[in-house]
């Protein structure tokens, strides 16, 4: 039933080398699954997924469309670069408020209540948000109502009303939310680690406070949004059951006349960051029975030449749950944590290497030491070749899931283009992953992970002095009410 015209399949034949023989570990496993697995590996790896159509409007807006008629729906989003990393000093929270109020505050010419009721009646949804690096306005509608909903969607994005009453309520709710932060140990640990890494009053570490929220008015929302919402560099990603011939003129009707001054945000204008100098260990003394531990230091940006090696490192070391060595060691072997992960997180200009886990407060120091020991062993020994090969297979075989739904296909295309990935990124991806060697992983472990630089945050029922003594490290005590505030420094007492 599907119209194949819009689905040009790309097929990638990849010869997977060296998978059939030489399975050193897990001998018995071979009996049951390895032969089947090896058969799989010898087949060519194909990526056979639908391809979207793209075009560009006169104002520079790029549109990405994938026809899919399984359900009588249309979905889409307008994506722009820009967000929390661009908040002016002292106005932290303006990104999330602008994001929510685009939709919540209704477009010009509508009362918010009237706008809510209109969409609810159509069974349609329009949502909006600004994250750290990107913002978006998105919609879902029945295909029959597409033209009507799309017009409203365009108005939300391009002609926001930012209703002052709704903004007032949103600010009050944000203030209430700030009060609830101190109940959330993961938020506390994450926010403290960020300040430890980037320093205070930095766009990468700052979170909204009562003071900054109170300062934000409609004017700040307008200015913030206008800075990013420009056709050049934006991507409109659409999918659904209407033919391209129907969609194209409707897009032109509502976005063709959109104009804005040149000079929006580019990747080059993202703020740079410098790793802060300070104590290594931070303790937030709180009565949580379960201690939450976060560790980290700086890492490479997204488009680093090591990006494929880092993907494999992440999968092997700590970002794939069960398969990863940190999970196997800390959870399965030692029973110290329910949730544990570690790996590289990358942004446009900078990134981090981070580890996170939860453990009972009495084991917090032990669990920390076990993680440090594991990293040390990872760096000194050679990675297990079979494990790296498995990680590569896993990454390549699961690659197809990035294209599992029509909306993920168009959304992925939008992100790759906006974030400056090369045009052939997807077609070369599996080959690039396949080229990662065991030596590459050993090298990134040694060069990109630095035990001595790793900052450690512990939140829970534990005393700063106790941690200082046990780790023989200076400890920065941190108070957390609405944001981390550094308190006293504790010196380790010599071991008796």
């Amino acid at each position: 039933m599907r119209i194949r015209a819009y689905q040009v399949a790309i097929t990638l034949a990849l010869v997977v080398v060296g998978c059939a023989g030489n399975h050193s570990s897990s001998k018995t496993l071979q009996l049951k699954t390895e032969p089947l697995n090896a058969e799989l590996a010898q087949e060519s790896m194909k990526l056979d997924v639908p391809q979207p159509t793209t075009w560009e409007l006169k104002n520079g807006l790029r549109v990405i469309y994938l026809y899919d008629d399984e359900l009588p729906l249309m979905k889409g989003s307008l994506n722009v670069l820009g967000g929390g990393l661009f908040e002016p000093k002292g106005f932290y929270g303006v990104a999330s408020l602008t994001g929510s109020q685009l939709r919540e505050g209704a477009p010009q010419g509508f009362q918010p209540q009237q706008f809510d009721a209109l969409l609810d009646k159509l069974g349609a949804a329009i949502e909006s948000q600004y994250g750290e690096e990107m913002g978006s306005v998105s919609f879902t509608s029945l295909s029959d109502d597409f033209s009507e909903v799309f017009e409203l969607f365009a108005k939300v994005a391009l002609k926001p009303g930012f209703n002052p009453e709704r903004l007032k309520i949103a600010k009050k709710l944000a203030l209430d939310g700030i009060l609830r932060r101190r109940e959330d140990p993961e938020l506390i640990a994450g926010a403290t680690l960020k300040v430890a890494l980037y320093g205070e009053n930095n766009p990468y570490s700052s979170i909204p406070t009562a003071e900054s929220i109170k300062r934000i008015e409609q004017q700040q929302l307008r200015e913030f949004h206008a800075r990013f919402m420009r056709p050049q560099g934006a991507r409109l990603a659409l999918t659904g059951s209407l033919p391209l011939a129907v969609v194209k003129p409707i897009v032109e009707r509502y976005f063709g006349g959109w104009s804005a001054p040149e000079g929006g945000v580019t990747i080059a204008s993202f703020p740079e960051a410098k790793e802060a100098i300070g104590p290594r260990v931070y303790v937030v003394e709180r009565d949580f029975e379960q201690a939450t531990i976060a560790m980290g230091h700086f890492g490479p940006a997204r488009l680093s030449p090591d990006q494929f090696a880092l993907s494999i490192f992440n999968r092997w070391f700590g970002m794939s749950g069960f398969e990863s060595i940190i999970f196997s060691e800390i959870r399965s072997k030692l029973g110290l944590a329910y949730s544990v992960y570690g790996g590289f997180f990358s942004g446009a200009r900078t990134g981090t290497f981070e580890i996170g886990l939860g453990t009972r407060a009495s084991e917090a120091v032990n669990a920390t030491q076990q993680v440090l020991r594991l990293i040390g062993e990872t760096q000194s020994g050679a990675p297990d070749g079979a494990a790296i090969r498995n990680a590569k297979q896993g990454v390549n075989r699961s690659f197809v899931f990035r294209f599992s739904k029509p909306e993920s296909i168009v959304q992925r295309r939008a992100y790759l283009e906006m974030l400056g990935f090369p045009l052939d990124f997807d077609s070369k991806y599996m080959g690039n992953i396949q080229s990662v060697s065991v030596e590459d992983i050993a090298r990134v472990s040694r060069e990109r992970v630095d035990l001595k630089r790793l900052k450690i945050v512990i939140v829970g029922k534990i005393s700063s002095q106790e941690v200082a003594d046990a780790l023989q490290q200076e400890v920065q005590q941190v108070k957390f009410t609405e944001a981390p505030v550094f308190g006293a420094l504790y010196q380790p007492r010599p071991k008796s």
Partner: protein
Amino acid sequence: MKRLNQFCAVVCYAFCVTFCFALLPLVGFVNGPASSAQAEQGDSLTAPLRRLEQGVKRITLSNGLRVLLYNRPQVPIFSAQVWVKVGGVDEQVGATGISHLLEHMAFKGTTSIGTKDYSREKPLLEELEQLVVSLKPGENLLTHPEYLRINTELSKIVDDNAFSRTYQQLGAVGLNAATSKDYTMYDVSLPTEAFPVWCRMEGDRLVNPVFRQFYKEREVVQEERRSRTDDNPSGLSYEALLSTAYWVHPNRLPVIGWSTDLKRMTATQVAELHRTYYRPDNIVVSLVGDLEVEGLEEKLEECFGQLPRATTPLPEVRVEEPKQNGERSVVVEFDAEPSFIIAYHKPVYPDPTDVHFSVLHEVLGGGRSSLFNKELVLGKQLATSVSSTEAPGERFPSLFAAVASPRKGVSNERLRDEVQALFDRLKREAVPASELVAAKRRVQVSLIAGLADNDGLASMLARFELLQGDWRVFLRMYETLLQTTAEDLMQLSQKYLTINNRTYVRVERPKVPQKSSDSREGKS
């Protein structure tokens, strides 16, 4: 039919991200050709359901195990789920949390996956069980010299996480499992070329499981309990809700288990539970995605048909909760901002009222113009959030609940009375026809959208087939929903949303003055 994820209604193996997924298609399913304009709409909207009805294939294997298939060949991937009808309601005090612990153990491998030599491993595992039962009160297993010796031997044989690792090597996504009051489910999505391996692995873990590394996993589950419940005000208040609203029925027990029960659980008990409930007539498998695999049905028979038929009847839950007479209330002291739950006993399917409650959820909290948001968040500005949900399950009479957080300076009591006043208004005034039509349409769209997802569809199919006996109950409930009227909503409000039938759980700060703002003095 609607459950919220702030409730720990389900506990998961890895991270509880899948469980809202599992419930997603159920959040809504109402249709509303109540006017002529809607009737036209109804056609394009019911077409996907008709296609679904025609497309789903049910296979019954030689041992009675049921498999549901839905082919969607556009992308060469599929989602697979194995659902077993065993959960919290099948447990007793003394062994609460055992279904969930078994769910964790199902990732430890089989007689051939996860071991380098099962013939050497088996006697060591038996020795370990003997040691466990011989422990004196107060003796710590994990530091016992015998345990350490056995464990050292075992660690030379065990291949850690081999089961999950094999899956991930095959390109698996969303490998997880979840346990609720009513069921245990195992979930994975794979490239279609991995189908034969999936089939053998899942069959193997049903037929030949080995519960190795049990006593470490028991520790992991206690970590899970601490972070999800003990340090979490909403986890604690949910646990308090169930033990207050239910006096007799096992719905009162926490799925994750009481701490003292977890500490005493043995691998032998878990193996016993597996023998009792993991049997062909108590399991449903669902597969959605690109299923164009040669000899698919023969392979399914080969992998899952080997699970022996059970000859004894399944244990039944015979306990019935007596009718609640009068409001119950409980306080959870926690150093947190105030919040509360009010909950009311309600029937479950096949009682048609169950379906009417789905419409009520949408009218109350489904869109931005729905009652809760319009009246309490934006209008009177008394709440930071109010939502409605259902818990804990669907095999036995359950609860309709409103969960709310008051704005700073507003007391729990004040907001509770306002929520109750909205319910009381529903008893007197009919929901306006336009609102009812809009609510039905919204749910319909969200239902249709939910079908797009392989994993979500696999959940819906297995869930209804296992818990209601036939996945097409989903379609029947949908038909009932089409006919829900304002009168139905009024009647259910009058009958169920009464103070007599209400349980009120509130989170309050401890009354004792605090030594410092950073410490908590006690909690319930």
